[in-house]
């Protein structure tokens, strides 16, 4: 099956041994989208790696930007401004909603249900329009910067944001009515692709897959970063960890993310005009009028851009809760403007590894819903 199969959104080859329609053995082969992410990062400056992180999980690019920048900032030992942290929470959650909408929508499409897919994609369009409003790009955002953000929130954006969220909620509620109680849909998802929570932990699986099996591990609560400890939200869990539980967990996480964004709006309104970027000449360039008017600032900008920011020698690991689980970056610096090593801990790659165990003994038709719920994103899995 694969590498390019109409019922899988992601390029993967699955070698199957079947007895009738029962899966006897299988081997999952990944790597079709390998583009040498880590090698490319090592050859550019610290800043030049950010657009590459967009192309890891292209469904939730902002979360990957965020994880990378947080790792570099940890190495630089700098604290973000409060406004920047709230902006990051808001943008990251938008990204998560977009990712989950794609996951649940595409799952329906690949099982032959076109209508719910369109509900999901219509809602995702609204999310992508919101992302475009933030950074000018719908998918590959390149929004987060080391020490700040690409730019501040545009005027009138927050009103549009809360209107669009109402729309998204209406669409997800319609989606829920069409799909979740549909007998055909439930039969395809219930009791398929199940794996116990003990085994998931052994395989280091995180994110919605683990939560669906009943382990309420969410880095936003387990190890709060940014301003998540000031925000009120719940961590949905499933009971047995089959595909249906995973589907319900993702649906509820969309609602929880919208709840988080709603809590960001008043804070962002109140802090209008506050600084977004930190005042640190190592990573932030001087204002443009000073660059063009003064010699020192011109030199600073020139050296910053051509040589890259000087990151102190050492190593750091920072992780965020991405839509698929723990997305971490391990960065090593030798003190120059270029990274010595950038390792991405990809949740997709780790989560695909136990797919074989989820499916052996099941039916051929279970592959598609299981693969959809694992939500392997080729860009992130293969890097």
């Amino acid at each position, binding site marked *: 099956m694969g590498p390019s199969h109409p019922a899988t959104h992601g390029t993967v080859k699955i070698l199957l041994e079947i007895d009738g329609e029962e899966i006897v053995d299988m081997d999952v082969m*990944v*790597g079709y989208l*390998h583009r*040498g992410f*880590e*090698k*490319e990062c090592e*050859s550019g400056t610290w800043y030049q790696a950010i657009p590459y992180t967009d192309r890891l999980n292209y469904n939730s690019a902002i979360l990957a930007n965020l994880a990378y920048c947080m790792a570099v900032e*940890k*190495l630089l*030992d700098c604290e973000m401004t409060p406004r920047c942290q709230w902006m990051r929470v808001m943008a990251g959650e938008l990204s998560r909603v977009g990712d989950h909408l794609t996951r649940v929508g595409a799952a329906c499409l690949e099982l032959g249900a076109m209508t719910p897919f369109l509900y999901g994609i219509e809602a995702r369009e609204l999310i992508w329009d919101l992302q475009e409003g933030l950074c000018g790009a719908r998918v590959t955002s390149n929004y987060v910067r080391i020490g700040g953000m690409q730019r501040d929130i545009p005027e009138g954006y927050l009103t549009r944001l809360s209107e669009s969220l109402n729309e998204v909620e209406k669409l997800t509620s319609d989606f829920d009515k069409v799909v979740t109680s549909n007998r055909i849909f439930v039969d395809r998802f219930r009791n398929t692709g199940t794996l116990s*929570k*003990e085994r998931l*932990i*052994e*395989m*280091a*699986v995180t994110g919605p897959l683990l939560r669906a099996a*009943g*382990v*309420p*591990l*969410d*880095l936003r*609560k*387990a*190890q709060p970063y940014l301003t998540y400890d000031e925000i009120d939200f719940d*961590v949905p*869990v499933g009971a047995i960890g089959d595909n249906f539980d995973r589907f319900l967990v993702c649906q509820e996480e969309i609602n929880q993310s919208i709840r988080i964004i709603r809590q960001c709006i008043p804070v962002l309104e109140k802090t209008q005009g506050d600084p977004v970027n930190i005042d640190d000449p190592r990573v932030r360039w001087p204002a443009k009028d000073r660059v063009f008017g003064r010699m020192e600032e011109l030199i600073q900008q020139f050296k910053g851009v051509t040589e890259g920011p000087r990151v102190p020698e*050492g*190593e*750091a*690991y920072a*992780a965020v809760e991405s839509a698929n689980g*723990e997305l*971490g970056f*391990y960065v*090593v610096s030798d003190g120059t403007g270029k990274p*010595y*090593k950038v*390792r991405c*801990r990809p949740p997709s*790659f*780790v989560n695909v*590894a136990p797919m074989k165990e989820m499916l052996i003994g099941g039916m051929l038709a279970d592959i598609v819903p299981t693969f959809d719920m694992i939500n392997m994103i080729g860009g992130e899995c*293969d*890097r």
Partner: protein
Amino acid sequence: MTEAEPLLGTVKESLGEAVLDSHAYRGDATILVAPESLQDVLLELRDGEKLRFNLLMDLTAVDYIEREPRFELVYHLAAIDVEPRGTEPCRMNQRLRVKAGVPADPCEVDSVVEIFPSADWMEREVWDMYGISFRGHPNLKRVLLYEEFKGHPLRKDYPKERRQPLIGPRN
């Protein structure tokens, strides 16, 4: 989460002389161990009282081409509560980075798949990218690249521009 310094104290107490070096930098606790003792160390970290690192989150390597030993394997461990306490979400109890130097020749180390099954694909990736081989791995073959690929691209002496020969169709 336990702070890095007290955690290092607990770890050193349990592992004794196996810890060759340790440091806490930017809040991350790191220990350096000998490659021969990796299996024992990781087993103790998983099962030891007060340690209980139940997740091998990540495994990677770094090529310090001018140093001896040339490679460094980097294991990222994490400890979480598995048993839910009412409706409370899990806590991340502690994180630890374990490093071990691996020489260029023989570029080989014991596999830890038996201790942490998640190491299966991660060790295959390290083999694929760095050419470090893992003794006792059940299925050590390339995972991201193809079998006919020559060399290991994340080694610092592999030029970024190098092209690989085309291979024909395969079944």
